[in-house]
């Protein structure tokens, strides 16, 4: 009897695992590691609580040439946060998938000047993103092309 129960449990195990893994949502195609056109950084996009966030995971120059120590967010308008390391900095925030390969309602932070801009992300193909930062209206902005690090 015990053997039969064990056998049934083993048979059911793959089914419960299949249930536990939710199918990927269309917006999840954004998840991955991407490189901006300047090639100075790599950004890992992940999903937290239904929204998408991107943080710097690699810097070509990780150290500040002036101090020799790891770069920090020295231009942050909030002085209390100027010790936040740039490696690990979450510069893409709060993106929601709005359909048609577009993620909107998010912001992008530029550590070079400490400014935050509204932003939309468009997936041109599996390995290319158009990242458009703007102030106010989308027309008044700048687009950068990001490439997926491990091409699909």
């Amino acid at each position, binding site marked *: 009897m015990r053997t039969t129960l064990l056998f049934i449990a083993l048979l059911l195990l793959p089914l419960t695992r299949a249930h536990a893994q939710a199918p990927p949502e269309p917006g999840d195609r954004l998840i991955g590691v991407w490189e901006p056109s300047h090639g100075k950084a790599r950004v890992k996009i992940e999903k*937290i609580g239904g929204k998408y966030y991107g*943080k710097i995971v690699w810097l070509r120059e990780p150290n500040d040439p002036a101090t020799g120590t790891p770069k920090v967010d020295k231009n942050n308008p*909030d002085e209390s*946060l100027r010790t936040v390391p740039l*490696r*690990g900095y979450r510069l893409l925030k709060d993106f929601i998938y709005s359909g048609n390969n577009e993620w909107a309602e998010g912001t992008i932070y530029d550590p070079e000047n400490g400014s935050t801009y509204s932003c939309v992300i468009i997936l041109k193909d599996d390995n290319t993103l158009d990242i458009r930062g703007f102030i106010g209206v989308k027309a008044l902005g700048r687009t950068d092309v990001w490439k997926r690090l491990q091409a699909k």
Partner: protein
Amino acid sequence: MRSEPREPLGGIKRPLFLSPDHFPMMRITLPALLLATLSACTEPERLVYQSDPIPLVAAGPLFEGTNTAQGEWTTGLEAFLKAQGHDLTQLREARLTMAILSGADSTGLSGIRNASIQWVGGDAGMQQVAVRNPLPPDSNAVALTVAADQPKLADLLRTGTVTVVADLDLDADSDADRHVIGSFTLELTVAP
């Protein structure tokens, strides 16, 4: 029969110090006193709220560099405010005054070079709330530097559930999960 002239107020003599006729300034002073009393009653109240310890987990395998640890914080703010005679709609402002990061096991915080904490929930965007760079080596619990700018914390806390995101900068790869604990002290401003 001659009737006696009636006293004002049905025979009760008005006390001199309350008579506007005898003390004309009272016309102005009384309303002013009333207003001052009312404004004192409606002054916002400040409450201190301490969160329960919030377990945060970074799921392994983990790599040298920044890894994300997360945990859900059911704030319990509604019950707290109710116990103080308020409700959530009366919450006007919230400020994080202290953030403590501690180890959840014997590992403590060893191997974590620096840490920054963000909160996210509901429609409020992600907010960076605290950072410590570098972390003191081999410590078990540290107070983080709290952000000076905290513009939307009240909105975030009204949602009832906050996702706490801790970016932990690890000094080495690891196959195992990493567990830490976040604890927060808030100053709440509640209007009657």
